[in-house]
């Protein structure tokens, strides 16, 4: 017997293949790309949030040393590129010709021989603005007489969207014994990826081919849209997404920089690099959340939850650019019945334009699921407190029971699988829930404030089935193309784009599992539209559910062919050939086998007569349903009655994402997501004053957590496989960001509930808590 090689298939906690180059700094980000003759693009940005442009004088800038081009909106107009379509059917200004609509908007592009020359020349462009009244509050934007952000629309109202059954919901509310309601604001935040946005654009005028290396999560979509707008044949456009330093939804968008760089390359005939620095990027690129909601929950006195309704206003900034599937202008917010077996629900959302950059990033979230989970998990907690029932008990009483899966929610989603009580019980046991409640009781008697918060979330990821999900008409399938070389080594290409998720490892593990080839022998490539199969990219935790499934199915196609070749080699009938990971043997004679590598060699050297040579497969996977990862998080906080600081003492996270491909990567995803959720809950916020000045425009003002503040995460899991996914996997990238904010807020409110506090909007700044303590006469001055 030969030794079975270690292949690191499903479930192996192998270290990430790509980390070797990341750790050594041998990676290639957009800013690492340097082409001969390259010039640099920088922008004049607007200090005004809303102003008419009286005039732009570029003469001094054009005459400055090293300047090769200055590009204004008027220059883009004849090309039809002063505005471009967004993914939501709206359009977005590239450079303004009439007026600016948010602070830090790109106004004029300056291209020069060096970054320094460009930056110096930017200061020489003179723009005369006539300030206009500003609106930064979406509720005010929807009022009569508010300043109009988009004159082409003549209204600030973007859309009205409803889901669920209004009448049935209202009826249940009328009949309910208890109704709780809460106004909540999910604040505007930035995804704060490590690598700001940028591109290198090069138009080869001989071949007529534009090539753009850019920070994008969805290169193929960019190529198709670019071709449709510019009429440049799609085969001539090449979009390359090299190594990406985090995306979290923020790099689904195409920003003015890429358009202007491409035009500048055509104008100058030279490669043009544009890379935002942090202080450019943070205030001008797209934002997440910014969502004002009124949520209400109805229940019987015994704690049976009946119905849920939400009325909300969402702020989309100056352009409606959400990267939502076409049929879902407000994403998948209708997952808001969460983990509970409700009888009815209804949500309505109005979108508003304001003088802010476009919003609506599904920040590490499958299209507004974060807001939905926050709403239901906050309201369930409020209901529990109102009824005097322990929040854990109320959840356990109302969870969708395991036997009801697949479960059709009142909103029409079919949840694939779940065991919600299992996850919550495990989390309770791990944290010592009963003991903590006892401790809390004693502390309360001593005047000490301690809180315990639970969030039992259900996610909806893996967009998505072609009958429901498309972006600009393109179905949201996942794609994989796998080719086995004669020596049994593999190249596999995907229509997704890793931004740090570890695809090079997990996809390799899937193929390893299916074909028995060690992951070291599998090269995974993504991000180059000239080589990768068409795909809609990576966001919304969709890569494993779609492209991961495609990898499995394509591998199985290869295995089918390999089996025929093996039968030929083993001189056996195909039905007598048995597959065991890594090799085929003849039934009843395991010693007589051919390894997959031997079969691969034969595919090119000794394939059966009549069979095509080669060993490869392509698969475009159309998921039959979404997947529904879930989990229960429990957080314990202690509150300083003097300073108002809430310190997270413990945080237990039990996640269930179905079958796990790489536990190390899953753990990493959860740790990262929890930290982002912690930042959201405690310190992150982009604010605006009435003049449209942004607060939190750089990392000096906008705080994201460091390792010092970040609590120690205690993670665990349950495993409830997805019944419809080829690997039983569900996707995990976003669970923690989606699920954790409610746990933090619930914990802090739980601590303060006896004082009469029902809610605090995030971020849970110490000053907000202190103010409440003062109001309730509970603040200490020492």
């Amino acid at each position: 017997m030969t030794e079975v090689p270690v292949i690191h298939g499903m479930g192996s906690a192998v270290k990430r293949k790509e980390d070797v180059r990341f750790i050594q700094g041998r990676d290639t980000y957009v800013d690492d790309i340097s082409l001969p003759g390259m010039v640099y693009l920088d922008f004049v940005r607007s200090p005004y949030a809303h102003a008419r442009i009286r005039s732009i004088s570029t003469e001094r800038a054009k005459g400055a040393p090293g300047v090769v081009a200055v590009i204004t909106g008027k220059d883009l107009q004849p090309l039809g590129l002063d505005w471009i379509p967004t993914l939501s059917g709206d359009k977005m200004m590239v450079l303004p010709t009439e007026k600016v609509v948010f602070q830090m908007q790109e106004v004029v592009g300056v291209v020069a021989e060096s970054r320094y020359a460009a930056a110096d020349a930017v200061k020489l462009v003179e723009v005369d603005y006539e300030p206009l009244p500003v609106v930064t509050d979406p509720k005010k934007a929807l009022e009569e007489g508010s300043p109009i952000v988009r004159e082409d629309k003549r209204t600030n109202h973007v859309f009205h969207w409803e889901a669920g059954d209004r009448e049935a919901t209202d009826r249940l509310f009328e009949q309910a014994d208890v109704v709780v309601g809460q106004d909540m604001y999910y604040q505007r935040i930035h995804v704060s990826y490590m690598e700001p946005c940028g591109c290198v654009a090069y138009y080869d005028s001989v071949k007529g081919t534009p090539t753009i290396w850019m920070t994008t999560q969805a290169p193929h979509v960019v190529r198709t849209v670019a071709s449709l707008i510019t009429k440049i044949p799609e085969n001539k456009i090449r979009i390359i997404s090299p190594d990406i330093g985090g995306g979290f939804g923020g790099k689904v968008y195409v920003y003015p920089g890429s358009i202007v760089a491409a035009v500048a390359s055509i104008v100058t005939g030279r490669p043009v690099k544009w890379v935002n620095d942090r202080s450019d990027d943070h205030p001008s690129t797209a934002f997440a959340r910014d969502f004002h909601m009124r949520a209400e929950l109805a229940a019987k006195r015994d704690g049976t939850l009946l119905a849920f309704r939400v009325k909300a206003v969402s702020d989309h900034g100056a352009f409606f650019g959400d990267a939502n599937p076409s049929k879902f202008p407000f994403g998948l917010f209708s997952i808001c019945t969460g983990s509970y077996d409700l009888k009815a629900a209804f949500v309505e959302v109005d979108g508003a334009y304001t003088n802010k950059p476009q919003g609506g990033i599904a920040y590490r979230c499958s299209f507004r699921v974060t807001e939905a989970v926050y709403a239901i998990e906050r309201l369930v907690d409020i209901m529990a407190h109102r009824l005097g029932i322990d929040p854990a008990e109320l959840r356990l009483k109302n969870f969708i029971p395991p036997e009801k899966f697949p479960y059709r929610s009142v909103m029409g989603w079919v949840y694939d699988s779940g065991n919600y009580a299992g996850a919550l019980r495990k989390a309770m046991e791990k944290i010592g829930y009963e003991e903590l409640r006892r401790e809390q009781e004693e502390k309360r008697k001593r005047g000490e404030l301690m809180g315990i918060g639970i969030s039992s979330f259900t996610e909806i990821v893996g967009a998505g089935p072609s009958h429901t999900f498309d972006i600009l008409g393109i179905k949201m399938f996942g794609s994989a193309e796998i080719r086995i070389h004669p020596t049994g080594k593999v190249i596999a290409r995907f229509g997704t784009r890793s931004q740090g998720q570890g695809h090079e490892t997990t996809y390799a593990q899937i193929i390893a599992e299916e074909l028995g080839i060690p992951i070291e022998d599998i090269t995974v490539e993504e991000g180059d539209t000239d080589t990768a199969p068409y795909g809609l990219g990576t966001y919304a935790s969709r890569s494993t559910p779609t492209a991961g499934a495609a990898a499995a199915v394509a591998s199985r196609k290869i295995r089918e062919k390999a089996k025929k070749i093996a039968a030929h080699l083993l001189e056996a009938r195909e039905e007598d050939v048995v597959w065991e990971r890594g090799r085929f043997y003849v039934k009843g004679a395991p010693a007589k086998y051919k390894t997959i590598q031997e079969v691969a060699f034969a595919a090119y050297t000794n394939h059966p007569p009549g069979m095509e040579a080669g060993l490869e497969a392509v698969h475009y996977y159309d998921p039959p349903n979404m997947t529904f990862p879930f989990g229960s998080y429990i957080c314990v906080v202690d509150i300083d009655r003097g300073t108002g600081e809430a310190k997270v003492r413990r945080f237990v996270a039990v996640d269930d994402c179905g079958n796990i491909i790489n536990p190390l990567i899953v753990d990493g995803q959860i740790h990262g997501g929890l930290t982002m959720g912690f930042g959201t809950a405690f310190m992150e916020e982009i604010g605006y004053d009435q003049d449209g000045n942004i607060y939190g425009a750089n990392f000096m003002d906008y705080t994201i957590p460091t390792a010092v503040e970040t609590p120690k995460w205690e993670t665990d899991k349950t495993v409830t496989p997805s019944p419809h996914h080829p690997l039983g996997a569900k996707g995990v990238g976003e669970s923690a960001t989606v699920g954790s904010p409610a746990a933090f807020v619930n914990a802090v409110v739980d601590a303060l509930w006896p004082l009469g506090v029902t809610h605090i909007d995030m971020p849970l700044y110490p000053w907000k808590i202190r103010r409440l303590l003062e109001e309730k006469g509970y603040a200490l001055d020492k």
Partner: protein
Amino acid sequence: MFVIPDRFSYTVAHSVEEAVELLHTLEDSKVLAGGQSLIPFMKLGYASPKSLVDINRIPNLDYLDDSGESLKIGALTRISRLCDSELVAKDYPLIHDAALQIADPLVRNLGTFGGNVCHADMGDDLPAVCLAMNAEMVASGPSGQRVLAAKDFFVDRFTTLLASDELLTEVRIPKNRRGCGGAYLKLERRVGDYAIVGVAAQLEVDGDGVCRSVGIGLTSASTKPIKASEAESWLVGKSLSDEVLDKASTLAMNTSNPLSDIRGPAEYKKAMVKVLTHRALKLAYKRARGGL
């Protein structure tokens, strides 16, 4: 757009005299020490000095010397040196507390004591320490050396008593004796951030625990670093009971006049001056009683 400052000239000074001469002759000049505030301000476009005078190569400005009447700290002494110094940790807990809470290790490796003091932002930590410890600032200018009291040094936000052609060379801290103790408490949004509010307290108590002298400096409690003088004078001669500390911290709060900003509303910051003053005095007292 923001990583690149406006054009400026850069000159290296090799002696204090040369630095002063350069500051005197160069147009719109600014001293470059650790550069941990100046450089970010320049790249963000907040400041655009026409000339920088780099003092990092002036010898013998980086020292901690307690051989004489006072602890002498050279203006170029890096913050990290204060963090690592056994002398500071043991004898000057107030300085040690504050140094450890300034920004992050990378900034502390380059940032200097003199730079932090001369930047004189309301959110810098060492000005409050100097105020609490009644430090003396030694400056060299074209007409020679002068010694300025910390309480007079901080004129306004980003503005000190130093003339544009004067260089701070040394800060002198009264030596800690038996019965002395100090503490710096800093409330921050996140580690490394500027203070929401910071309180520096330095105490000397006699054998009965009666306050002989006290200094209280406040960070982010006004548009500039300030001294809580009323609280100081009220404390002298008293035993530090909880009631006494309450009154002192109320007086400190009344001295403060913070701005509302992203770090919190003014009323919160005022309340925090009170809370932190109480806690800082208590910790300083504990350290003072613990002996040196």
